[in-house]
């Protein structure tokens, strides 16, 4: 039997066992996860549907086809970049850092078979998000134009063929970077981070180089599209899928089949190329990555310890020690903070360049709208990051729990330490971002203060949710944070966090839209609404923080590891 067949058969058995376990497990958990997934997909569908319908009604007679073409080009271009990046990262860890790869390479398995096997895993792992984002858009697009089953089947074929392209590119990037770029762990990571940052920066700078005129919204849109017209370059695979799907809608089957064939041929070519490269680079990359060793030495009581020790004077000793330990671990793990830096860095660049769009010269309705969107973007990014980084923190203590479980310190100090770290760090970053947004937009002081207060509540609530639920649903068997996050507790935390953010946004957004919008509340009424809004935010934030924390504290007191 060929080695790749043996590996595939083993994977199939493993998946069957997982499926059986899910079936035998708690139906409630499965039902909750399924309900969340369906609700999330349905919300995205509604959002896309309303957006497309609005555009259709607004620009049906003039620009709709042009607008859709550009939007699809940009959408698929951005998704492709995201997929290449995530495939490269996942491929690097699964080809060169995993225990399973070491186990397989020590056996009589060809390196290119190990590559194929791991490629399939990376493809599945990184592409589900693409399908989760792209399918509601396509469903909304199909529903808007009342398209038949042929459109959905055709779109499905496009997607299945397409995901191989970024996966193959990502795999090749991972192998080439590992084999030929800096020979140190940090150098490798910096290579990945710098390359992806450079690509993103170029895109952002393209958009931000536009100086808008205040009176010509449509002109602005067209300027933006013109400036990022590179996404409509016919040489790009993202253009092929975008064009192919639009041709499907227009029932131009021949044209659609041409693009499907083009994607299929390129997927095969790139897949073949990656496989061919793996015969030489898989083992080479493995040897390079195994030969890396960090030479940096860290003394106890260094500058970071002293600075943190002094600046966190207001915390109890136990909490302070936990905060310093977690911060040091975070700072020394570039995989963690590089993701953090990319997303918050992009938000900062965008906020700092808000004046490129001349929003500060617009009327208060637009300023309020943009400020609200910025607050939402910051809060949703925070929600994602608290779910990704804070929630798994206690689970990650699992194998080290004997250390902190044995020290003469109350266990609740562990949770308070994590809460303090999460709250203070997210508060510092997000308040800075929103302050930049307010200054760049020249928003009225009332709005700026309202947003700062709302963000305070959001940071508190998100931190409480992530830390509390992290203690309530720990997973001590797993040391991979992304696997901890993808369990029931992680999903619940993400969904509750998103719901909490939307609730706080509504509590402060309603009075703002009523006052700064085109419905113009009287100042007296506005004050009344603001009091109601602030009280709601306080209740929501305290509930989001205190309830999960109380449950988490009770759980950690009884914890047996």
């Amino acid at each position, binding site marked *: 039997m060929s080695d790749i067949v043996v590996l595939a*058969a083993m994977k199939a058995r493993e998946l069957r066992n997982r499926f059986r376990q899910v079936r035998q497990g708690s139906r409630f958990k499965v039902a909750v996860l399924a309900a969340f997934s369906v609700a999330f997909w349905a919300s995205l569908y509604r959002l896309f549907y309303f957006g497309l319908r609005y555009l259709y009604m607004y620009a049906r007679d003039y620009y709709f086809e042009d607008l859709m073409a550009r939007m699809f080009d940009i959408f698929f271009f951005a998704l492709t970049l995201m997929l290449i990046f995530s495939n490269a990262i996942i491929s690097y860890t699964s080809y060169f850092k995993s225990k399973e790869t070491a186990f397989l390479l020590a056996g009589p398995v060809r390196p290119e078979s190990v590559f194929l096997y791991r490629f399939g895993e990376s493809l599945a792992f990184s592409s589900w998000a693409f399908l989760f984002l792209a399918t509601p858009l396509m469903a909304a697009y199909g529903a808007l134009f009342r398209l038949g089953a042929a459109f959905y089947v055709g779109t499905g074929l496009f997607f299945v063929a397409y995901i191989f392209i970024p996966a193959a590119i990502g795999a090749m990037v991972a192998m080439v970077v590992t084999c030929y770029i800096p020979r140190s762990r940090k150098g490798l990571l910096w290579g990945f981070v710098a390359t992806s940052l450079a690509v993103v920066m170029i895109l952002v700078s393209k958009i931000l180089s536009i100086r808008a005129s205040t009176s010509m919204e449509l002109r602005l849109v067209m300027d933006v599209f013109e400036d990022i017209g590179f996404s409509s370059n016919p040489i790009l695979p993202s253009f092929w899928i975008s064009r192919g799907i639009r041709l499907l809608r227009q029932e131009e089957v021949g044209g659609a089949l041409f693009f499907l064939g083009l994607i299929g041929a390129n997927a095969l070519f790139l897949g073949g190329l990656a496989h061919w490269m793996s015969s030489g680079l898989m083992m080479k990359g493995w040897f390079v990555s195994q030969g890396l060793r960090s030479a940096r030495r860290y003394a106890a009581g260094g500058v970071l310890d002293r600075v943190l020790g002094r600046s966190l004077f207001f915390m109890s000793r136990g909490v302070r020690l936990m905060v310093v330990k977690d911060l040091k671990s975070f700072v020394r793990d570039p995989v963690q903070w590089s993701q953090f830096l990319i997303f918050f860095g992009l938000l900062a660049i965008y906020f700092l360049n808000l004046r490129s769009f001349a929003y500060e010269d617009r009327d208060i309705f637009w300023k309020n709208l943009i400020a609200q969107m910025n607050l939402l973007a910051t809060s949703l990014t925070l929600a994602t990051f608290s779910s990704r980084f804070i929630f798994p923190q206690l689970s990650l203590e699992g194998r080290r729990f004997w250390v902190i479980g044995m020290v003469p310190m109350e266990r609740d100090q562990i949770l308070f330490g994590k809460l303090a770290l999460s709250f203070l760090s997210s508060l510092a970053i997000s308040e800075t971002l929103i302050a930049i947004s307010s200054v760049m937009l020249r928003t009225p002081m009332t709005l700026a203060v309202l947003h700062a207060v709302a963000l305070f509540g959001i940071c508190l609530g998100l931190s409480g949710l992530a830390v509390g639920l992290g203690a309530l649903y720990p997973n001590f068997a797993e040391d991979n944070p992304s696997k901890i996050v993808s369990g029931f507790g992680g999903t619940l935390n993400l969904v509750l966090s998103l719901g909490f953010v939307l609730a706080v946004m509504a509590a402060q957004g309603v009075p703002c839209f009523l006052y700064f919008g085109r419905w113009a509340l009287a100042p007296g009424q506005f004050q009344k609404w603001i009091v109601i809004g602030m009280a709601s935010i306080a209740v929501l934030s305290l509930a989001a923080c205190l309830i999960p924390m109380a449950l988490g504290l009770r759980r950690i007191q009884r914890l047996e590891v």
Partner: protein
Amino acid sequence: MIELENVSKHYGKKLAVSDLSLRIEPGEFFAVLGPNGAGKTTTIKMIAGLLRPSSGRVRVCGFDVEREPLKAKRLMSYVPDQPFLYDKLSGLEFLHFIADMYDMPSAERDREIDRLCEVFAMKEWIRELCESYSHGMKQRVVLAATLLHHPKVIVVDEPMVGLDPHSARLVRGIFQEEARRGTSIFMSTHVISIAEECAGRIGIVMQGKLVAVGGMEELRRQAQSDGKLEDVFFKITENGHSGPT
């Protein structure tokens, strides 16, 4: 048979293994001892083909591990210090997977699995998922997988960690039996008594160098000590003895 010819390994500027030359004959049980960080695991990983020597050559049963890795690996079994098992496979499924990787005919596979389940007393729980096993149960499955395809060379890194006395004795007996059948065994261990009891030859590694090698008598001579292996080991490592390689 294992041959290491002037093998060195650098991690950046750090020299982990220095100019190591060694030959393990068929049927020989060779144990390597040394303090933490001496280069034992690096040496073992180079034999297993998971690390490439910076210089020198490693051969297993006559096949260069770097140039003909698949031929070498087909004749060899490697047990790392932290063995890997698929959590979502049962022990039986894992053994089937290993047998398939080594192209064992199904009748022989089933017969051998039955025999090994008997030897390692795994029958009761071998159909359960590996995630439910204790450390000792996992070690037994890994050792069964190691022996399943009748390797000519077994390379083992710290096999006794976490085993109860009964299992440790069982493993010792099985390795000795394998050596009697003609299998070359290269074992790294911290447990001096096991090396003393099982190994025909013992190598002592310090700071990447093989500072002493030979049977018990030879090591005693090199260390100028009449004591047990423990005394010999401490004398050699404390003196930073620089013996033959």
